[in-house]
């Protein structure tokens, strides 16, 4: 890619987002290791360029749905790290009041309609959100993030067919990190994968190097423009690599060390930094972006640790209006 002033600015902005995602998840992993965060975390370290590139192509009023590995999607869409970290810590002031945790981060104020603990769970929700937005006269689109494992679940087929039938404003984003939980995706996926499946249904699709943030942004911008023109849904297939285990407690020792090392050499943040440096951006600028992100997330961690626990009575709130059980005295 040639480096114009415009795409240098874009690249710096993408780098900031990716650094913030990385720093958030590293702070959360440290918090988990220190026993501060209850329950497992699914982190997306090594996959930040997909969230950053796709969300940079979206408007504020566009919506996203996410999956169990959704910290990056939320931050890239604009969710504030403070309430997010408090949610991971199960504290008052978390986005979900401590009822959701890492797997159910949502921030409706920035169009983040929720992470999801069920693989492919966000796909029907995304197409319905797009259908509802159309009914309300909006031209907002819905970007739907899911992994390579989701293409083997029925809602993937149903949702693509549905979105194509009504030419809904949906960007399907298959974040292909090469592994479905503890199993290589290619060992459990027949045929040519997400792009071929989408095209068979009539949803135009393309693959991109998901560790190249600028390439992800370019493809996402082109697809978002087509979708908003009313040309129907698109599927963006981003090839990336999950550098760590399935959860924060999974060492992923079964993986080929050489493959992981090779993937580490292609990881997206160092690549973007190298590109920026080669195009004349001072290393000091890049280091400052990293340091700012780390400081921001260290603050979020410290604030989360200091935040109060939610009142036990709040466990009884927001179940239902009619037929709710009483809060015990």
């Amino acid at each position, binding site marked *: 890619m040639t480096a114009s002033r415009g795409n240098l600015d874009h690249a710096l902005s993408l780098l900031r987002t990716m650094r913030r995602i990385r720093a958030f998840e590293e702070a959360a992993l440290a918090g988990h290791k220190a026993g501060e965060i209850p329950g497992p975390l699914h982190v997306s370290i090594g996959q930040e360029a997909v969230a950053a590139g796709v969300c940079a192509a979206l408007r504020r009023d566009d919506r996203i749905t996410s999956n169990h590995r959704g910290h990056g999607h939320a931050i890239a869409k604009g969710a504030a790290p403070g309430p997010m970290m408090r949610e991971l810590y199960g504290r008052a002031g978390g986005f979900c009041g401590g009822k959701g945790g890492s797997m159910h981060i949502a921030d409706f104020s920035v169009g983040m309609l929720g992470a*999801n603990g*069920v693989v492919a769970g966000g796909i029907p929700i995304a197409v319905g959100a797009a259908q509802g937005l159309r009914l309300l006269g909006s031209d907002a689109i819905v970007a739907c993030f899911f992994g390579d494992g989701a293409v083997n679940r029925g*809602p993937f087929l149903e949702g693509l067919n549905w979105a194509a039938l009504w030419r809904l404003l949906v960007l399907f984003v298959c974040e292909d990190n090469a592994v479905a939980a503890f199993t290589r995706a290619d060992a459990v996926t027949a045929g040519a994968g997400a792009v071929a499946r989408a095209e068979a249904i009539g949803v135009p699709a393309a693959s991109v190097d998901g560790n190249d943030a600028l390439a992800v942004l370019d493809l996402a911008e082109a697809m978002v423009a087509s979708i908003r023109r009313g040309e129907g849904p698109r599927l963006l297939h981003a090839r990336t690599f999950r550098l760590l285990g399935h959860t924060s407690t999974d060492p992923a020792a079964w993986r080929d060390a050489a493959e992981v090392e090779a993937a580490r050499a292609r990881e997206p943040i160092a690549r973007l930094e190298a590109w920026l440096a080669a195009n004349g951006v001072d290393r000091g600028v890049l280091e400052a972006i990293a340091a700012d992100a780390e400081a921001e997330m260290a603050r979020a961690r410290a604030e989360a640790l200091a935040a109060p626990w939610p009142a036990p009575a709040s466990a009884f709130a927001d179940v239902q209006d009619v037929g709710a059980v009483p809060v015990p005295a």
Partner: protein
Amino acid sequence: MIEALRRAAEQEMRRDPRVWVLGEDVARGGLFGQYRGFLEAFGPDRVVSTPISESTIMGAGLGAALVGTRPIIEMRIFDFVMCAMDELVNQIAKVRYMFGGQGRASVVVRMPHGMWRNSAAQHSQMLEAWFAHLPGVVVVAPSTPADAAGLLVASIRSDDPVLFFDPKDLFGETGEVPDEIEPLPFAMARRVRSGDAATVVTWSAAARDVARATESLGREGIETDVLDLRSIWPWDEEAVVASVARTRRLVVVHEAVEPAGFGAEVVARVVERLGPGGLRAVRRLGAPRVPVPFSPPLETAIRVTEQKIVAAIRDVVAA
């Protein structure tokens, strides 16, 4: 009843432009004619005939609710909801709670259920108890045209997700329904008849058979206090407890399988409230724990019939 249900949904779609309906064949009027004329009245954006994709019918309804519309999710018949259980149980029922109140699943899921004209095991089920067990949802199971219409209006206006069990076998029932259908509150039992001999609690299709059975007992002078719950979550515990406190005899009748049916919850709550000595006799009457068979004599063998209800009430009254 089907016309009462049709009018209730039509009234609400005229009242609120955010209400729309999605499901298989709804633009053709729906399987039972409950949406007849809707396509012409409201257009294809609000009357959406979908593919046979139950997961996405349910999940899309949720997504559309999260951005501010109020979908009626038509499941065609209840048994097909099993193909959409993730979207119903893991998503719709929990979204408000999991996200700390940020989103509301203001949907009505319509599920015509129950035994119906020898339709066999996958088209006749009554599993309403599953959903009474599920936090986050309202569960409605009416038995008369007026109740069905009033409760459907209330369900569509509810901000909570409502699981609306249309009673298939009662679709042909007739009754007075006002021109302007008012919402009927949930958890308000309907007193079908009054008496002191025993309290009989029922809902949905079994209510029709209970009405016939208790009418014939009434002709013999056995007058029972009959309550049609109309909604089973929430349910009218106060009315049931007050009645049993008076009669001290309780029979719960439902079409669903008896073990672990919602009747067990009714009995348990009454015993908790009145104490183990508060009742002289108690009886649940439901189907045996077998799937619904096809052949008429086989289906009849497992059905909760008027005769079985009469016998159960006689036993309890005599105890």
